[in-house]
Every structure is written in C-alpha cells, then in structure tokens.
C-alpha cells in the first residue's frame, strides 16, 4: 500500500521526473508520426507499383514473344479458372524515346509496353495514373479539374485540351514555316537553327539537319499523315519523368514542373524488330497522356504504347497465320490472396524454359525488401530516442534514490522489505512509462491526424513549402496508422522505462537501513 502512496507522492513532488516523461512522450510521438507517414508512403508506393503492374504477370523470355494472344489467354483461363478476373496481352521491349525540346533533341532509354488501354484498365487502376483523368492539386486545392469525364475508359484519343493544343501548335508551326520559306527565298539559302520545338516534317525533308535523330531513317515522311492535325499511328502514354523536370521558381521559391513535351506533341520511338537478328525499327507517335505513378523508376522509364502499332513496327505478325505475337500477359485476380496458387498453376501451363510467372510482389521483391529494411533501420534509430529517454530516467532515478536514502532507511526500519522498496521505484518507472507513452500516443496520433494542417501552418510561417505535391504527386501527405505499431511502440516505451528503473530500484533495495538512517 505504502508503495503506491509513496510512488504517487514522489511523482507529484519530483518535477524533474516530468523531464523524463516528456522525453518518453516525445520519443513515442515521433515514432508514431514517422511510422505512420512511412507506412502511408509505403502503402501508396505498393499501390502504385501494384497498379502499374498487375496481380500476376506472365512473361516470355524472348523479346520475340509468343504467337496468338487469344490462345495464351485461353490457356491461362483454363488452368486458373475461377481465380482470374481479367487478362490483358502486352508486348514489352526496350526502346528509345526522342523528342525535341527548345531546339534540342532529347533521347531517353525507355521500356516500351504495348497495351490495349481498355484491357489494361481492367487489370489495374490505369486511369488513376493518367494525368488527364485526374485533377491537379496545388496547396491542397484543385488547381485544374480532370480533363476527361469520370465515365470515360482509357483510350488512345486526345483530350479536348490536348486536341486544341495540337491544333494551335501545328498552325503556329505552319505559319513559322511559311515565314521561314519567305525569308529563305529572299536571302541566300542558309541553314537557320530553329528554336521551334516540333519540326518532324522539316527533319524528314532535310536529312542533313544537325538535330536529326541518328536512329531515324526517314520513315517519318511516309508516316506523316495527310491531314496535318491527324495524330500519328503510334499513340503513347509517357512517364511524367521522361518529359518533365522539376525546378525551383526563382521568384516564389516553390518547386514547379517544366513540361518538355505534352499530350498532343509528337515523339519518335526507336526499338528493335522481332526476328533473328533484330534490326532497327522506328515510328512516330503522338503523346496521348502523361502518367504519374509517383514511382520514379516507372515514371522516368515507362512508355505505354498502342499494342497494335508496336506489333506492326516490330513485325510481330505471322504472315502465314496472320496471328500477332505478345511477350506477356497481365492478370488480375478476383482475390489477391490466391496469387500463390495461381502462380503455381500457371507455371504448369507456361513452362519455365519459355516463361516467367510472377506476382507483382515477386517481380518487385528487391525494391519492397529495400523499403522494408529502410523502415526497420529507421525504427531502430528512432527507438534509440526512447532509449535515450530511458537513460534519462536511469539518471534521474539514481538521483531520486540518493535523495531518498534516508526515507528508504526509515521504511526499512518500519518493516518494509527489499522487494517493497524495489517495487516503489519500479512502479515509479512504470508510471512514468505509462504516462509518457500514453500522452505520446495521443500527441502522435493528433499530429498524424492534423499533419496536413500542420504542414500548411509551417509553410505559412516559414513561407516555404515543406511538402511539395509536385515532387511527390500526392495532394497531401499520406499517412496510415497501424494499431499494432502504436501498441508496440507504447509497450516498448513502457518496457524501457521499467528497465531503466531496475538498476536504481535495486540499488535502493540493497541499501543498508542503518547507513541510510545515519545520514542527516
């Protein structure tokens, strides 16, 4: 009984103990906030990866692919009947993306994925990545509404805005060309460096153009459509990282995005043909949309292209049967829990010497593992904060034990046992831990709940954006609070507080009553 009473009195009269409560509290709150944000980002990242891939992916080893997508889909559906919700055929191959920006040809290595947008949208949330289907946020508010209606299925048509842009651009270019022609007829013919970004037609007409793409062999002229506004046969969704770069606005200091190419612009794509040996193949394509998954790895690497055109250009078309070839199948399952079973079944039908069958997690194993390791390390580091608080408790408790030496002697003279004395300090430690982590949990959860408001406030005070949505592509900071995480953080903090009080408590318990009483 005296234990609780004294413990409570010591708590109330030793304000120094408040310091250790605060340090436990801050440690716990920090861990909860960081973990929630990390897990929020992690969940978003997984969603994005998952969304761009598919639940299960079957890939052929060869870039030549396998013939007859319908047959392959039928086989897949047969072996994994009942599990599969949707399947879509794709062709994946490496390639190069070329486009002209400010008079300069930009070439980027890319992974080309030929898709049928309707089918791809069924195996994953494709539309949530496409720029024109989603509003653009700025400072947490919608700065530009979605350019396409909600019910529209992803397709290869330009949005009205992109269409308008394309018309304007082509008109401007024609005017510019006519001006240039007039100028050239006056003066001696002379090569002028053009700053106009788009000049495919010109390029094709003048093979010695210093800006010409070396891989491009003049097919463009044949591909150039009769209707000047008509889109190219190739249609692409390009990763945002390929056609834009962030920069800091010198006036406002805010991060902005510079678009180097936008929907409505034309690009050139070079890749290789199927067959032995592969040879060079190139085509022109119109950017239909820009996709932002938020994963740099994808956004600066992937180009989705219309499957048919890619198959045509690569010659993935059997002349005998008229059947097309594909390199992979993207599968959406009814329930992702069945993924392992489905992968096993598919492996039996798609032999490993020709195909790789993997779930998206298996495909992205190293990345996911890296994120997990990262979060584990961060947690260890953060837990050290609480450990520091633990040492604070240790030091403060030693002080209190020394200060309370005489009282300990008195209690022993009155018949208190060593165990009783020890439990005073242990329960004191526990009380600090419970109060500290309790308040810490509340503080942390409140912080997480209001994190975006807090971010706004900090931005308002410092005048500098803490969380820039143009960098992360999130309208606001994503968070995800895992109850198990909160509980283990709180319990861990309490355990540390108790552990830190063990040594001072033992010292108190072992104190010799007479020696303690002799002090005055």
């Amino acid at each position, binding site marked *: *009984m*005296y234990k*609780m*009473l*004294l413990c409570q*009195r*010591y708590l109330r*009269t030793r304000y120094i103990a408040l310091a250790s409560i605060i340090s436990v509290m801050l440690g716990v709150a920090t861990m909860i906030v960081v973990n929630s944000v990390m897990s929020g980002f992690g969940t978003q990242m997984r969603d994005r990866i998952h969304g761009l891939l598919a639940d299960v992916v079957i890939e052929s080893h060869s870039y030549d692919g396998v013939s007859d997508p319908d047959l392959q889909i039928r086989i897949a559906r047969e072996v994994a009947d009942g599990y599969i919700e949707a399947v879509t055929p794709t062709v994946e191959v490496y390639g190069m993306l070329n486009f002209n920006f400010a008079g300069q040809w930009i070439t980027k290595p890319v992974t080309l994925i030929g898709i049928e947008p309707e089918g791809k949208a069924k195996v994953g949330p494709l539309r949530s990545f496409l720029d024109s289907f989603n509003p653009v946020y700025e400072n947490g508010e919608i700065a530009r509404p979605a350019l396409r209606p909600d019910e529209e299925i992803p397709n290869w048509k330009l949005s009205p805005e992109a269409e308008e842009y394309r018309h304007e651009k082509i008109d401007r270019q024609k005017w510019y060309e006519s001006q240039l022609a007039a100028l050239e007829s006056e003066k001696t013919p002379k090569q002028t460096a053009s700053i106009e970004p788009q000049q495919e037609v010109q390029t094709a007409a003048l093979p010695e153009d210093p800006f010409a793409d070396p891989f491009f062999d003049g097919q463009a002229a044949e591909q150039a459509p009769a209707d000047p506004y008509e889109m190219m046969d190739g249609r692409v969704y390009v990763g945002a990282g390929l056609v834009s770069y962030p920069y800091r606005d010198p006036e406002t200091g805010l991060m902005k995005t510079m678009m180097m190419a936008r929907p409505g612009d034309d690009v050139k794509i070079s890749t290789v043909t199927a067959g032995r040996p592969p040879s060079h193949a190139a085509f022109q394509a119109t950017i239909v949309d820009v996709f932002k998954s938020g994963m740099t790895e994808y956004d600066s690497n992937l180009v989705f292209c219309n499957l048919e055109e890619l198959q045509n250009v690569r010659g993935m078309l059997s002349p005998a049967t008229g059947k097309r070839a594909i390199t992979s199948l993207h599968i959406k399952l009814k329930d992702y829990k069945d993924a392992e079973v489905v992968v096993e079944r598919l492996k039996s039908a798609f032999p490993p010497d020709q195909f790789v069958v993997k779930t998206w997690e298996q495909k992205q194993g190293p990345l996911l593992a890296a994120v997990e390791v990262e979060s584990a390390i961060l947690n260890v580091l953060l837990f050290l904060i609480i450990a520091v608080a633990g040492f604070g408790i240790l030091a403060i408790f030693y002080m209190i034990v020394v200060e309370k030496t*005489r*009282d300990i*002697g*008195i*209690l*022993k*003279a*009155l*018949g*208190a*046992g*060593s165990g*009783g004395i020890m439990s005073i300090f242990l329960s004191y430690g526990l009380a600090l831990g419970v109060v500290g982590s309790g308040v810490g949990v509340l503080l942390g959860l409140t912080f997480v709940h209001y994190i975006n408001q807090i971010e706004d406030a900090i931005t308002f005070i410092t005048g500098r954006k803490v969380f820039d949505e143009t960098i992360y592509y999130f309208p606001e900071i994503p968070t995800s609070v895992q109850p198990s995480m909160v509980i283990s953080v709180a319990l861990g903090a309490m355990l540390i507080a108790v552990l830190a009080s063990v040594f001072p408590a033992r010292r108190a318990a072992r104190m*010799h*009553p*007479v020696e303690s*009483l*002799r002090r*005055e």
Partner: protein
Amino acid sequence: MNEILPTPPVHLSAVALDKSYRKGPEAVNVLRGVNLEVRKGEFLSIIGRSGSGKSTLLHLAGLLDTPDIGEIRLDGKRIDHLPAKTRDQLRNRVFGFVFQFYHLLPELNVLENVLAPLMIRYSMWEYWKKRSELQDQARELIAQVGLEHRIKHKPSQMSGGELQRAAIARSLISEPEILLADEPTGNLDVDTGKGIIELLERLNSERQLTIMMVTHDEAIARKGQRIVRLSKGQVENIRDRVAS
C-alpha cells in the same frame, strides 16, 4: 500496595555482542562482548559518550543491523539470524523506533506517517478494507500524543517537539512490545524534551511497554528505572532497578 511482584521475565537480551566497523585500513571495535537484558515492561536508559556505540547497540537490538558475533534474543529465542523477511516482520510488529531526528517521511502528512507501518504490514486490498478502522486507530494515537490539530500537516510545517510526538505515535501504531528510542530528546529544548519523556513514561506504565532509551543526558536517563553505561565497548550498570 505492598504486594511483592515477581520479577518480570527477560524480554529482550543481547548476548556477547561484538560489532566493528572498518574505517579505512583499521577496524573500529565499537562493541566488544556486550551483554544486556531488558525485562518485560522495563524502562531502561542507556548512556554513554558520543561515539561509544549506543546507536549501534540499539540498531542491533532492533534488527536494523546484524552483530559480528553474539546473539539477540527475544523472549529467550534467538532472532538476529532469522531470514530477512522474518526480521522485516519483527521490525514491523515487535519493535517501535523513535529517532533523534524524528525520521518522518517528508512527502506524507502526520496521519499518513503514523499509518505507514500498517500500510507496510497490509497488502493494498487488506488495507483498503480496514482503512477506516485503521485511520480511527491512528487518529486516537495522534490525539494521545496531543497532535489532533496537526493531523493533515506535513513534517516541514511542524516543530521538533511535534515531529517527535508524531514519530512516537507512528512507533505505537503497530502496537509494539518494545520501543527503541535513540536520543528522542537530543534535538529538543529542555521543556519539550521533558514532555516527550513524560509521554514515554506514561506509555511505559499504562501499556507495560518495554522501553530501551539511549541518551547522553544523565538527567533524562534518570527517568528510566535502570541505567546502564556503554563505554569502551562494554556495558556497566549505573543504577539498578528502582522500585516505582
């Protein structure tokens, strides 16, 4: 009353006690073969110079410390070698301690301080069940020592005499058989000291409480029925039992 009372039995005895402290390289032999008996209901005064080992003897008798050689016997049975838990219980139930510097717990008020031995004795649940009864006991004792108006005061708000009264009330709450008082008046002025001694005398006669009181003041010592002096680590009788 001329009835001849039989001599009361020996209550607490020290047999051939040796106790030495290490002070640096050399050992200080504080007690060298001390033999001392105190009978039931006796008020024994122990005098001696400062540093002669009076407190040491009292601590040994009250099981706060263990002798190097020798035994402490309660009702003829040896108690100094008992396990720690049993000795804790004996301290809690059989002995009451009063110290020169009162030794009240500063965080607790008078009532709580007086109740402390009972809080130690009972588990939380038992204490909670009995609390009103125990509190009544404590209040009564506090009234007996004349502190009823100080019941909620903290030690820091009280005078020396009041503190010592509170300490005596605390030592009595567990209804001990033996009261061990180490210079209970050492820190008080003469009049206040006298009051404390009168209180002890009253308890001795009313409750048949065995008292061992250490003092270095001979006038105070004479209030006891018997006086022994501690010097050079040995006990010598100064005055034998006085018929009271």
